């Protein structure tokens, strides 16, 4: 109770031990931190309830404004005007920026936001600042997110009349483990413990599983397996999942995702309306920021209107003699964003393919997220899946409701009516492996593997009497190792002198249900039972900022002297 509102945890960044020390002290709440909107829900005893802020909002804008001494977030703050958020004093879209380096295209796309996003293009974190009293005041996405989470926590505590510590967060499918650590960091700064992280569509899948379970109870029907395809597109990310559901168990068969969303559609349209937008905005004076805000609001408005009508008239006076007056049709809008829609379509197809599911076998197609009203998107999905869209789910509340259900299940809550007789069996969104066989990425745990999982692969040395070997762990699905996310690296030492190819270096990876990745590595000489040196255990990721540099530095320092190659497995499955 006496805890300070703004609690900054120790720098160890390790939360696993903390997690296990107090298994289920209270019901974890579900939080959906969207790129543009945010919501909180909790299991209320018989069903999930969405919490409301003092202004009776269930969905709150995700931003923090620095205009006063004390920063204020979208939970408590009341915007006097939409443009206030676009004045440069407010930071938003933190979810798009968190854990990304300044060479990332998503960061570059964010440079047209009203606040300052500065890049040096060398693979370090971007410089982010808010305009406070005509001065750029620096901050970080983690800090902004933490301030926002503190407000959410205070709101939840006020309503639930109890301290809130454990949370289930929804995250985009495409988030790397490094980005996940940044999210966890922000939570730790806000005094919250992450019980589970759920890829957004898997949270929706759990809600769907509960609905199916209830239908079975009510109709006394057969609890046959249902395959659901879930497509989620919000402001910042686009995710797809295929799940198989039966008896309240939601088994994730495949996941696919990318950092594309409404924000990209908006940017495309702004560029379409004002082709020289970037040069127009380069100096970032107060007037320019204001003009950009005008354009942004007008464009956003037009896009929303185009969901319901086929034509819209845009009239913006940007000042300085610049005026945009244009009639925009839905076809033109769809044409400008063709690439984004094509990418969405290919993601759906890829996910169905990875799940080894035929379109005919899909029972329900669920469309959620802020972009779910775009007619083109609905057409694409009904076209690919040859099926009408499932209408039993609120597209803006589905993810947070699913997260709250998971929070209750993982907190050990039982419901006498079986409403919590649920389980999500997650799958890995990205492959995890090591650098070996030259500069190749050798996956150890493949994409879409059921969690928890433990797999091992045996490697061996490439040089005679090689005494040490580097284990460099990456996450991703690109063949060329440097195109994947670097998670960490460590060295195995004490390999007994032997010709190359003789020592067996066993690299084992273990992901538990709370998505913690541990990498074990040990050396065994043929014919010997025990490892030649103590086995190493490393919790990943270990990299901090500037991970682009680390791999290069390792290459420069060691070259191929500490390399590994895979041993062809004999008769193993």
């Amino acid at each position, binding site marked *: 109770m006496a805890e300070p509102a703004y609690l900054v945890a120790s720098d160890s960044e390790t939360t*696993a*031990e903390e997690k*296990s*020390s107090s*298994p*289920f002290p209270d019901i974890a709440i579900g939080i959906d931190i969207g790129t543009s909107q945010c919501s909180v829900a909790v299991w209320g005893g018989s069903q999930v309830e969405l919490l409301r802020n003092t202004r009776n909002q269930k969905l709150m804008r995700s931003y923090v404004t620095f205009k006063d001494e004390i920063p204020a977030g979208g939970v408590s703050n009341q915007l006097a005007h939409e443009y206030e958020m676009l004045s440069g004093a407010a930071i938003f879209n933190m979810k798009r920026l968190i854990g990304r380096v300044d060479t990332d295209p998503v960061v570059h796309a964010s440079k047209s936001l009203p606040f300052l996003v500065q890049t040096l293009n060398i693979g370090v974190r971007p410089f982010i600042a808010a305009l406070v009293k005509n001065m750029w005041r620096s901050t970080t996405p983690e800090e902004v997110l933490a301030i926002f989470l503190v407000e959410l926590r205070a709101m939840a505590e006020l309503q639930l009349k109890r301290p809130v510590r454990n949370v289930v967060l929804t995250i985009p499918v495409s988030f790397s483990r490094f980005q996940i650590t940044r999210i966890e960091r922000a939570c730790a700064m806000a005094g919250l413990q992450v019980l*589970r992280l759920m890829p957004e569509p898997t949270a929706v899948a759990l809600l769907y599983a509960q609905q199916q379970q209830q239908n079975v109870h009510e109709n006394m029907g057969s609890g046959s*397996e249902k395959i659901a395809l879930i497509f989620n597109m919000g402001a910042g990310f686009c995710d797809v999942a295929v799940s198989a559901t*039966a*008896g*309240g*168990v939601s*088994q994730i068969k495949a996941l696919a995702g990318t950092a594309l969303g409404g924000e990209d559609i908006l940017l495309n349209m702004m560029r379409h309306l004002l082709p020289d937008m970037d040069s127009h905005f380069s100096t970032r004076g107060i007037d320019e920021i204001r003009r950009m805000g005008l354009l942004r609001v007008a464009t956003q408005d037009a896009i929303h209107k185009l969901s319901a009508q086929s034509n819209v008239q845009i009239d913006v006076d940007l000042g300085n003699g610049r005026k945009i007056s244009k009639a925009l049709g839905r076809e033109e809008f769809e044409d400008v964003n063709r690439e984004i829609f094509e990418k969405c379509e290919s993601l759906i197809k890829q996910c169905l393919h990875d799940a080894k599911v035929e379109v005919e076998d899909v029972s329900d197609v669920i469309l959620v997220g802020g972009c779910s009203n775009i007619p083109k998107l609905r057409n694409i999905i009904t076209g690919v899946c040859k099926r009408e869209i499932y209408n039993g789910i609120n597209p803006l509340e589905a993810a947070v409701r699913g997260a709250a259900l*998971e929070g209750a*299940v*993982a907190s*050990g809550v039982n419901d006498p009516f079986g409403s919590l*007789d649920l*389980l*999500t*069996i997650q799958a890995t969104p990205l492959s995890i492996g090591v650098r070996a066989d030259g500069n190749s990425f050798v996956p150890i745990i493949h994409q879409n593997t*059921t*969690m*928890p*999982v*433990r797999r*091992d692969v045996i490697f061996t040395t490439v040089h005679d009497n090689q005494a040490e070997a580097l284990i460099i762990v990456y996450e991703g699905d690109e063949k060329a190792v440097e195109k994947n996310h670097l998670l960490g690296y460590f060295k195995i030492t004490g390999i007994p002198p032997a010709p190359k190819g003789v020592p067996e270096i*066993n690299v*084992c990876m*273990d992901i*538990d*249900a*709370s998505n913690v990745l*541990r990498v*074990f590595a*040990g050396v*065994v000489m043929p014919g010997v*039972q*025990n*490892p030649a040196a*103590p*086995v190493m*255990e490393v919790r990943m990721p270990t990299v901090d900022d500037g991970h682009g540099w680390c791999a290069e530095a390792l290459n420069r320092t060691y070259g191929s002297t500490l390399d590994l190659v895979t041993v062809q497995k004999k008769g193993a*499955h």
Partner: protein
Amino acid sequence: MLSSFSFHQQFFRPNPFQTHPPFNLNKPIWWRRQNSVLVVRCGRDKVEESKNYYELLGVCVDASAQEIKDAYRKLQKKYHPDIAGEKGHESALMLNKAYKVLMKDDLRKQYDASIGRISDNLRVGSIWEGPLRPQALFVDENACIGCRECVHHAGNTFMMDEVFGTARVKVQYGDDEERIEISVDSCPVNCIHWVDREELEVLEYLIQPQPKEGYGIYGQGWDRPANVFMAAKSFNKQVKQQEENQQRYTKSTDEEETPAQAQARESAYRELKVGRFARIWSWMKRSTSQ
């Protein structure tokens, strides 16, 4: 079968290396993890051979994909770490592994072949000491109360199955006839029977507990016929019927089919019509050819 059964029990009460009682949770985490990785690395052969994925999931060896799926989900609902807490990790790992293998046709075939080899090495029934005789000893384990009298009197012939707590014939005529006579007479429930040698094999097979159909290892798991002699009778009848059916088929189809076609048809017929019975059938064929 027996060695894998003891694995079952391990799964019930996970071994101390994998799950610590709560008071041990304060032990440094690396210690526990390191042990588990050593199990992975060094204990691989032992672990892999002692576990049977079918028993883990509590399904029959010829279970359909749907049955495996249902059983897997039921078990996950009990053992998944979301529900069972951190201690569910190892169980969920094993379930995932079993599920992955059994759900993929090629992996399942490979796996079936690998466990088939193991069960071949396992002696199913009693062995014979000396020449074959027309009569053989058989313990009806359903009736046996585990008094150990027979083992006491004729220890070379009878043995106790410590898992089931019942006596069983280890070696036919392992002791002299007098001792055997005493032990048969000393049985308080008269569960030691003299049977025809031809019947012995079927009886010994049928008395073995078989995994019962159902979900997991809770509440059911193992089953054997209540009256093993009746079961043997109907089993023999079925086998005879099978043979007749087969003969009828081969007779009527010989003219227009090549031998390969006939064989394919025959095996397809078996698959389709006989279903669950095929397992016993193939065992019979194997044991008679030996």
